[in-house]
């Protein structure tokens, strides 16, 4: 390494630095600006906002409830008897079930991700902060867990303790925390020794100031990105379980159970497969777009 880093470069770079200093844009202003310029991410956010509103409000607005059995309306196609997108084998309104399923899937995504966030951040930050022997042991433990065939353990859990919804949250969250802990630990470890942290310390910034101004914002970026990418992974994991008959139990619905049931009856009633599949794919895509957009916006390397 040469010492040239210390000498301000002439030309465009220096002007840009000066301009930035004048305006005083923060890291997050920058990130927001970049995120809003990303069309896919903005579209993802809009669609996701719509989906969330539909999931929260929707089930209260439908003419039928998700578990209401209508013997006369069995196997109706879309736009029949006030059933906008048809009914299933028991005459239950698909729209009501779909909105309920979306609500359940989103809730599972959020809560299980929160579980993984808490475990992962605590584990990773502790290991990274303490360092040394303990860090080695803790991360080796994560390595070992990584090489387990996890889907099997989740299935075992569901079989063992019965498929209740709280357990789904915990089981999936407990699987997804591994990557989170690695990310957080790596970040904490490098941040601890970064020059700007040292510089801040040398400039007399308090311990608390360093943590709130320098460590947390830099830790937050990757964590936020990973959270937005974990939510769709969790929704997918729950759907896998539901597909195998181990997830949410009827008459309750999730996107996974709806697709599983739709697949059974697709010859007779293709709408039962198609509508839930579309909602599922749109949901996953909007999360992924937001996640990718956030990563590009927050990670300054790819500017």
């Amino acid at each position, binding site marked *: 390494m040469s010492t040239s880093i210390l000498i301000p470069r002439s030309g465009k770079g220096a002007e840009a630095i000066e301009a930035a200093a004048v305006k005083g844009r923060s890291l997050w202003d920058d990130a927001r600006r970049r995120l809003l310029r990303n069309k896919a991410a903005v579209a993802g956010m809009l669609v996701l906002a719509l989906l969330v509103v539909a999931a929260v409000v929707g089930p209260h607005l439908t003419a039928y409830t998700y578990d209401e059995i209508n013997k006369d309306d069995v196997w109706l196609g879309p736009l029949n008897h006030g059933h906008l997108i048809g009914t299933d084998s028991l005459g239950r309104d698909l729209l009501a079930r779909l909105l309920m399923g979306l609500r359940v899937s989103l809730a599972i995504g959020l809560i299980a991700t929160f579980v993984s966030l808490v475990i992962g951040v605590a584990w990773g930050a502790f290991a990274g902060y303490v360092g040394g022997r303990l860090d080695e042991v803790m991360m080796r433990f994560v390595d070992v867990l990584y090489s387990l065939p996890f889907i099997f353990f989740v299935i075992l859990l569901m079989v063992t303790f019965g498929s209740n919804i709280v357990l789904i949250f915990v089981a999936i969250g407990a699987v997804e925390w591994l990557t989170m802990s690695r990310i957080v630990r790596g970040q904490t470890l490098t941040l601890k020794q970064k020059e700007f942290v040292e510089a801040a310390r040398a400039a007399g910034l308090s311990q608390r100031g360093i943590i709130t101004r320098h460590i947390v914002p830099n830790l937050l970026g990757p964590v936020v990105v990973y959270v937005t990418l974990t939510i769709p992974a969790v929704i997918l994991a729950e759907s896998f379980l539901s597909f195998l008959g181990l997830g949410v139990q009827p008459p309750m619905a999730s996107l996974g159970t709806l697709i599983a049931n739709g697949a059974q009856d*697709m010859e007779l009633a293709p709408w039962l497969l198609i509508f839930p599949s579309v909602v599922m794919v749109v949901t996953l895509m909007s999360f992924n777009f937001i996640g990718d957009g956030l990563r590009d916006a927050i990670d300054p390397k790819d500017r």
Partner: protein
Amino acid sequence: MFRFIGRRLLVAIPTLMLVVTLAFFMMRAAPGSPFDTDRKLSPEIERNVLAKYGMNKPLGQQYLDYLAGVARGDLGPSLKYKDKTVLAILKENYPVSLKLGLSAIVLASVVGVSLGVLAALRQNRGVDYGVMTVAILGVCIPTFVTAPLLVLVFASKLGWLPSAGWNDGAAINLVLPVTVLALPQIAIISRLTRAGMIEVLHSNYVRTARAKGLPARTIVGKHALRAALLPLVSYLGPACAGLLTGSLVVEKIFNLPGLGKFFVISALQRDYTVVMGMVIFYAALILLLNLIADLLYAALDPRVRLG
């Protein structure tokens, strides 16, 4: 290198021990037993059955016995399939899963790498955007959506392909399940290849190769691709784990006699030994594949030293 392999195999032992332990106690914590039938067994018969499988001993003793068995390579008898050992069940059914998985990974690698290279060479042009759109779709559309949809179109409506069944592994029966399994992997592999390729194409040694007048084909095929494939190789381990999850669903949808189908059924029936045997088998497989991926990585990248 042999020291590296040796050390990795040594680390694998405690990992497998943990797998066995977790599987054993989770399975035993489950309510119910493999001998629950519709008719209640008389106490004497139940005692005899339990004694036959050594399940009348204290749990700790059973655990030690099982560990000793595993160490000898004996996974015990199935508790549900009479007169069959767990090893026999594994032997009978894993070829199906293996054939599926291998075909899918080969298909995914070939198609994914080709698409990725194509996209990288035409960066920010129509082809690139097309490939990347397909890649995003491939990641977001789960197997349990693609599988029924493809069956609906190609089997039910068009009648070109069989909708389900194994038929002794006939090629025509493999088309749909392998495609479904490969699609998400194609998506990920093409993204990885594209990213790696773009980075490598901007590197100094590729510029050198260009400057000394090598033909484009040599540059891409010999110099760039080799380095661009590195991230792909380290992805192969997780990819195989992904295929496992996928094949649970695919085997169910296409009614294939692979291990995945067995697992869920056996877990529901509390067939302790079969479930544990399968978990151990898959864990060992994943460990082995990760090791192979690391060795490949070192073989491809002269900068990596195994130590």
